[in-house]
């Protein structure tokens, strides 16, 4: 096999399953020890406090047991992973600066075109490092910072030190501790008071190396009265060995600000995707998580909103599709800590070809949250007898002046629905895909247009052959 041949599994329906030969310039040894953590930190020339933070987090990671709930994680072998893979020594400011194979990867995924068409800024992470970053000039003039987390730590140490790990402490859970110990890359976004970033900022995460662990760390701070829309996408090659993606995303939504965080997760089916995402929302702030989970072998991810200030609003829109061999354990959490806070959690999941979707969520109203309102709605579709769907919502209400509602349904595609569409001339496959698209419509309509088209296309691809 020649060096330049792009490997693609012809049997896979997964469009992004190709890989390029690993030409990384530096890798830590396989496995995770104190030495690994020290090497990563030294490579990044980090301040002493960050190295200390990492080493402490490593101890926390080693001391915490694996979670005993949720998806089956027993097959993760922490000793077989590569925790840091540096693909190149320079970060590009234009696509011409990016090494050609890495650039080809993003070309295939369609990133440079997307950037020209409709984005205000783009960051692209390849394995452990962000290889490309650009922001339109106008935003920089307004004081908006959009850079990778490593540069953020170097160039804006005060802001980073003030907020880093305050939303998700290293002791939060085993995988947050792991991320805290070996994090690399991710985005750092700072939007000054009153600034509205009109076009979306986009980050693109790609795993290329084999047996790789990707641990990006993202921090978004929206100052008073500002707004920003952040979009991330993820893909990886199809390998026969497993990779691990364990991110930590922290968001600070200050008074009156508005943050929307959109994820289209389309990892290949050999990736364990174990992510902690949380936002703190202050007075009259609005936080929206739009979370699409299509890929990965196992996903465990529950974006959370902590409503800290009066009248803060949080929303989680989650869509999950689980096909053969996949388990999507996704959901959302809303914790009401202040008066008149409101939240809406909407989850739509589809399982087919023996896949399993689970909704897992938490709604908590503390005594302080007088007049809180919350609605949780979970709908699941099961397309065949081999597939499975679970719903595990939890509600803790410690205040009587609240309005709380939760509803969940699990059902199949109605025969009448299919029959009606087929009587109008659609084939069974088209009718089924139309019903499924209609089912997830409430979430798709919130996506930027290009993503909505992409999501519909992916679901159609996923469903090919699932009829008859």
């Amino acid at each position, binding site marked *: 096999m020649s060096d330049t041949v792009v490997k693609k599994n012809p049997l896979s329906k997964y469009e992004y399953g190709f890989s390029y030969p690993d030409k990384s310039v530096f890798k830590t040894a396989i496995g995770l020890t104190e030495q690994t953590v020290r090497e990563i930190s030294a490579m990044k020339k980090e301040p002493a406090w960050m190295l200390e933070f990492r080493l402490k987090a490593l101890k926390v990671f080693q001391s915490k047991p694996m979670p005993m709930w949720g998806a089956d994680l027993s097959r993760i072998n922490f000793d077989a992973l590569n925790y840091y893979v540096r693909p190149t020594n320079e970060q590009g400011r234009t696509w011409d600066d990016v090494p050609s194979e890495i650039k080809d990867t993003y070309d295939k995924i369609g990133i440079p075109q997307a950037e020209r068409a409709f984005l205000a800024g783009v960051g692209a992470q390849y394995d452990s490092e962000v290889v490309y970053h650009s922001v339109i000039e106008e935003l920089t003039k307004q004081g908006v910072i959009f850079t990778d987390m490593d540069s953020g730590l170097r160039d804006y140490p005060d802001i980073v030190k003030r907020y880093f790990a305050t939303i998700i402490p290293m002791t939060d859970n085993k995988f947050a501790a792991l991320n805290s110990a070996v994090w690399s890359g991710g985005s750092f976004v700072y939007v000054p008071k009153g600034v509205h970033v009109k076009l979306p900022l986009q980050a693109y995460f790609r795993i290329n190396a084999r047996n790789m662990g990707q641990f990006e760390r993202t921090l978004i701070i929206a100052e008073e009265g500002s707004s920003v829309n952040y979009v991330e996408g993820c893909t990886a090659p199809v390998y026969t060995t497993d990779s691990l993606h364990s991110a930590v995303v922290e968001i600070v939504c200050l008074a009156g600000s508005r943050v929307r965080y959109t994820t289209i997760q389309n990892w290949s089916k050999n990736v364990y995707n174990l992510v902690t995402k949380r936002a703190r929302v202050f007075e009259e702030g609005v936080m929206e998580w739009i979370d699409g989970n299509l890929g990965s072998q196992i996903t465990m991810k529950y974006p959370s909103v902590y409503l800290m200030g009066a009248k803060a609003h949080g929303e989680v829109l989650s869509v999950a599709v689980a096909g053969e061999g996949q388990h999507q354990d996704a959901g959302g959490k809303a914790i009401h800590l202040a008066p008149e806070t409101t939240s809406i959690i909407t989850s739509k999941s589809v399982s087919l070809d023996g896949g399993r979707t689970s909704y897992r969520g938490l709604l908590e109203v503390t*005594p302080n949250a007088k007049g809180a309102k919350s609605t949780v709605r979970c709908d699941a579709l*099961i397309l065949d007898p081999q597939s499975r*769907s*679970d*719903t595990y919502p*939890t*509600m803790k209400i410690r205040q009587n002046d609240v309005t709380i509602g*939760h*509803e*969940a349904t699990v059902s199949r595609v109605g025969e009448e629905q299919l029959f009606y569409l087929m009587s109008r001339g659609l084939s069974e496959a088209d009718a089924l895909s139309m019903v499924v698209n209609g089912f997830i419509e409430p979430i798709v309509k919130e996506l930027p247009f290009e993503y909505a088209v992409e999501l519909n296309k992916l679901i159609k691809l996923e469903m090919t052959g699932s009829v008859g």
Partner: protein
Amino acid sequence: MEGAVEKKFEGGDTQVVVLESLPEQWTALVGRDTAVHIFLPLFGGDVAAAHNVTVRLLEPGASARVTGIFLGAGSENLKLSVDTIHEAPHTTGWTNVRAALSDHSQLDFSGMIKIHEGAQDSNDFLEQRSLLLSPDAKAVAIPALEIEANEVKASHAVAAGPIDPEHLFYLQTRGLSEVQARQLLIRGFVETLLRSFPAEAQTTMLEKLDTLTA
């Protein structure tokens, strides 16, 4: 009653059970074409008493209805879980638990609907509503669905909240005092379910309801 109790329901007719005192674990095994109606007049304790009711629908045509009412007062504390397990096709479940919680009372409820692989054409609905009558009352609800068949219908709904101020306002515009209006609304909330209980099982609950709304 202590410990675990298991009871078989067979023979194809409809059977009624009132569980005045609930053991820690009570299991119903329901056979072919048999329906069982289970009524739970629920009482808590100072220390959270934990009870589990499990309904196993073992053969086609089995069905079960579970109806529970908890009127929590003082520091009454109740931990209740109701699990309905569909182990055969064409089985039907229905669970409805209502709680009116005053003072420091607390309800921890969890309710599972489980539909096994192959239990096609099964149908289940679980509902749990809590009326929070005091700022110190607490309601925890953990409903869950585990569905491994596709030709089924399974859903649950959970709600918790105070008396709707608009309902209160409406009744007051019709000439009732605030206290009378509250009493009427609490009664309405509880009696909707209570009226389905066998007559003798209603008495104790109605007495408690009287003290609650006095």
